[in-house]
């Protein structure tokens, strides 16, 4: 007898085993009807927090861009040391 014979013999007996009775229909229905609201609520929170974080970041980015893109910035910064 080799490993395959052992496997086959055990499997053939195991296939006759009576499986415990399980009915999950109510549990599944409870899960699939509930999570949609919960998921939507979670997504709304994430969206809200993202927006709250994005607004100041955007304002800051625009201000920085404005300062950085000023054509006279280099000119004034070059004279900055001399004036002081």
């Amino acid at each position: 007898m080799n490993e395959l014979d052992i496997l086959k013999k055990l499997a053939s007996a195991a296939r006759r085993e009576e499986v415990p009775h399980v009915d999950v229909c109510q549990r599944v229905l409870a899960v699939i009807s509930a999570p949609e609201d919960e998921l939507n609520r979670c997504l709304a929170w994430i969206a809200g927090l993202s927006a709250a974080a994005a607004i100041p970041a955007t304002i800051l980015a625009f201000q920085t861009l404005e300062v950085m893109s000023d054509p006279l910035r280099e000119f004034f910064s070059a004279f900055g040391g001399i004036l002081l």
Partner: protein
Amino acid sequence: MEFADQQLDLEPAALMVPSVEATERVHSMRPAMSDEDLEEIGAGLNGDGDAYARLMRRHQPRVVSRMWKFTRNTADHADLVQEVFVQAYLGLRNYRGDAPFEHWLARIATRVGYRFWKNNARERSSQTVPVEDLENLLFTDPLAVDPRQAGGTLHTLLDMLPPRDRLVLVLRYLEERSVEETADLTGWTQTMVKVQSWRARKKLRKLLEEAGMELER
């Protein structure tokens, strides 16, 4: 050779949103599925819980039986069956009807069971091969063997193998699936199934020999 877990580790499909398009698509499916399944999937897609419950009740016995091969703990077993039907519901919109619903469900069940094994792989106790039980069973008349005892011993024995090896042996020898069917259920190629099966047998043989069993070639 290492095989990627791509197919078996797929994430659950996005949350289902009932839509007219989806329902129409379900109704235009090929006749690979029964009319009852077709109607209930369509109704389920439109949020009809009762229709999905009927669909579940019809397919539940097979799923219950299949998931018993992944765990013999009754609480985990019920959880796995539930997980299969929740995953199926979430992915219902992506069901194309190429294969009967039962086959599609079997693929989900395989994935859920495999993931369960992978998550519990670290918790596997340092079990030993149940040599005594094994020898008692092997030298008993096949019809006189207690199926529950055989199932338990087989489960303990296969639990000592890595999830991939265990999966291929369960599908090929416990469920008596062909190479083609195993490939379909796992998402592996047929060559991969053959190689994995050969490697799993080799590991099983080594385990049995290390436990002191003398095996023929």
